[in-house]
């Protein structure tokens, strides 16, 4: 399915480009990001939690950035998997100067498989767009000096080393009461929504 949209960020394209390709920034601005680990140049592994209404869960994602043309465009390839589903996506990001700020446009081509595809394409794309919007807003706030993290645990989540740090509790403001998930993933219902950073989501459908 195709998902496209735009966002306005109040910083010049150079700053936005740098931020989008900086793992430290991503860990702070991706809603639901539990951990992020660099595994190579322009390649990252992350654990992100996501949920909307009766659909919730977490997933393991991998992201690669390529076709860098500073400061105007890059391609992000992402793959994510959670218990009942997988996503592969390729997103083109373009940045254009817009007065003092940047007009960002994204164009994603995604394939969704597994049980998560069962919620219907429009639910998936609707959630994805909503999440993208939240991510870009968080990015905008961060770049203007508001370092409140959008993700549950920011600083300690970032590691450049080979091991991943798992965090035992989410930030209280992010936690909702519902279903606990078995297995090694946390399940949170994040009111802040879902991250779409080229990686769409693997939902665990709650039972």
């Amino acid at each position, binding site marked *: *399915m195709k998902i496209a949209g735009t966002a306005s960020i109040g910083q010049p394209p150079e700053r936005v480009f740098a931020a989008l390709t900086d793992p430290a920034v991503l860990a702070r601005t991706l809603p639901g990001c539990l951990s992020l680990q660099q595994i190579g140049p322009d390649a990252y592994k992350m654990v992100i939690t996501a949920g*909307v*209404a*009766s*659909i919730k869960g977490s997933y393991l994602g991998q992201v690669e950035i390529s076709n860098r043309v500073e400061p105007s465009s890059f391609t992000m390839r992402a793959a994510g998997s959670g218990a009942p589903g997988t996503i592969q996506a390729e997103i083109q990001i373009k940045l254009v100067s817009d007065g003092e700020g940047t007009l960002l446009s994204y164009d994603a081509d995604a394939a969704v498989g597994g*049980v998560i*595809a*069962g*919620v*219907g*394409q*429009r*639910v998936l794309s*609707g*959630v994805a*767009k*909503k999440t993208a919007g939240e991510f870009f807003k968080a990015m905008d706030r961060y770049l203007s000096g508001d370092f409140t993290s959008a993700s549950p645990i920011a600083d300690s989540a970032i590691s450049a080393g080979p091991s991943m740090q798992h965090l035992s509790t989410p930030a209280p403001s992010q936690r909702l009461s519902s279903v606990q998930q078995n297995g090694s993933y946390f399940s949170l219902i994040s009111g802040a929504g879902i991250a779409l950073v080229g990686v769409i989501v693997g939902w665990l459908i709650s039972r």
Partner: protein
Amino acid sequence: MTTRTFGEPVLRREDPRLVVGKGRYLDDLGHGSYEAAFLRSPHASARIVDIDVSAAIGMPGLIGIYTYDDLDGRVAEPLPLLIPHPNLTGGRTGYPLAKEFVRHVGESIVMVVAENRYLAEDAVGMIEVLYEPLPPVVGIAAALAGDRLVHADVPENIAAHMVQEVGDARAAIASSKNQLSLDLHIERSASTPLEGKGVYAIWDSDSGEMRLWSSTQTSTGVRAAVAAKLDLPLQKVECTAPDVGGGFGVKIVHPWPEEILIPWAARLLNHPVKWTEDRREHFISSAHERTQLHHVEVGFDDSGRILGLDVSFSHDNGAYTNYGIIVPIITSTQLLGPYKPVTYRVEFKSLYTNTVLVTPYRGAGRPQGVFAMERTMDAIADFLGITRDKVRSTNFIRPEDMPYDHQLIFQDGRPLIYDSGDYPASLEMLKQMIDWDGFKEFQHEARKSGRQVGIGIACYVEGTGVGPYEGGFVQVETSGRVNVSTGLTSQGQGHQTAFAQIVAEELGVPIEDVFVTTGDTRRFAYAVGTFASRAAVMSGNAIALAARNVRSKALRIAGDALECDPRDLEIIDGSIQVKGDPTHSIQLKTIAVLSNPLRYAFDESTKAATQFATGDTSKPPIPDGEEPGLESRDYFSPMQSTFASGMHAAIVETDPDTAEIKILKYVVVHDCGRLINPMIVEGQIHGGVAQGVGGALYERMEYDEGGQLLNASFMDFLMPYATEVPFIETGHLETLSPLNPLGIKGAGEAGVIPGSALIASAIEDAEGFQIRKMPISPSELWQLRIDHQSGLIPSLKAKEIQV
């Protein structure tokens, strides 16, 4: 002696369960399943520009939201066009969820699945669809005008154009001494059973099997459609029709979008899913029927004998032709009724409009045809100054003419040949029952006291028991229980009783031991469905044949056991005995044991069938060509339909001041051959008559010019209550059908067929001017009176009809 059951008014075996609220209708099933709700088009014609579900995503209990883009494989293809026909050159069907265009108010666009129906509807309410409304085509005139199209690729909105003729009717009319022409109009109504549609599906991912229930008239049809659309082997799909709260034709259409989407969702989500229709949904997304405009030209001699009949009509088939052109074909052929015009020409155009699709509703095109024919008969009678019964009997096919070949093709693709019927005798009985000859005096007396009364008459012939076939399975268990099954379905026709009566009689067992299952593909997989007044004829005969096979096998085995000739044996109350010698007997259930040679005995009775108990080692335990068990499966597939007939008469009173119409007396004479259960047949007639009265005086679908259905509720679509249906007197004639072993004909639709023709005839008689459009309300009658007074409508020639 065995209690006779065939032909007896045996009380229904279905009732004890139903009257205590233990029926299992579709919505009673599926506790705990997800439920679906649909977003349906609010426009009669529009292009879908965008569907925005973002506001619905966060709704509590939401499981999924689906549009056409989510459909895959064959589910994304158009719905099947069930009955193709060479003349249906412009046949079109829709998609389970609208792809780009919607063509009637009510067409399904989005399916929402949620934890329950309340939550699903909440989510539907949050979905925003952006439409580009298009100018709709509503009504036959607009369709014929052709300047706007329902389907861009169907010119002039003509789905089909068909002509059938016998002889040169136009020439015959031109050269007749007398000619008349009539324009007639019947408005749209619908089946409106008290229970709407519903579907419940369970997907078993371990075995890859779909278990499906639908409130349908054809579980075998739904099964086949679902298997095809979901790309499953037929063996992996089973469909059951549970208790069904009425069908009347609307539930023979299949697959409804929901019948595909609900199992599709169940498989996608790996969770049971259910949907039941609410009343508004039924009005705007099921099916309607009846709208036709007829133009009749007739030529006749001075005795009223029709020498040429030329009928051309326009049929409104709604937005899609899922059921093909069966309805107008039935109109074309059944219009002839019990008459034999010398030449006949019938032409119809089946037209698209941006309204709900049109598929058979009890009568299925016959009411319209009968209206045309019977209004013509009355008009001829009036023109010549002869009585209305006389003009009809002049044109009757006589018993000695049978079988009578009309030289037309009927709705089953087979020749329209009436096999039997005695129309003169029916008319005589009818006249007696309504006191036809005494009416003139009654009318005269009534006039003296300021009352306006009129008498009407209408006749029809109904092709019943249409093929291709039905099957029956009869099995005697070792307990003595007799299992019977057939693949077609039940919606209140008493099949569990009537079919049990057949078997009880054929096999000589108590009816309490006979248990009938219908409409379950697990129990009988080869079937067509319940429609066209065919269940008794088709399944009744198939079951009788199967029962006879069982009987003859039982007698053969009993003959061996009792060491006598099977021809000397009879079966009474489950006991096979030598005729006249009850001491020399063996139980039918023992024969069931003996018919299945066993290695293992699991109770006392089965011991008798084990290897060391049975003696004869000179032949194999199961001889060549035989099967174990006392059971048989047989089929009935007739060469053609068998033709039932009937005549109705009624006396109505119209109020001189308020134009209110009241039915004072209603008489039915009915001939459907042998009756299995007269009580059940009468019940069918009563129900049909009520629908006929409804169609004559109350029921019409009100579409405005924007294609909006203005009366999509029971408050505004008027169905008759007990106070609107008169007391119905019924007389029966039985001319046996020569076309099936039981000699029966169908009865299901009979009651409704002549309703509009009859009431129009009676009102005309009361008022003294032509009635050409039905239904008629008091205010419409009032307006006609004014038009008549001002000369817009001619008086009948004979102001006081000679009776």
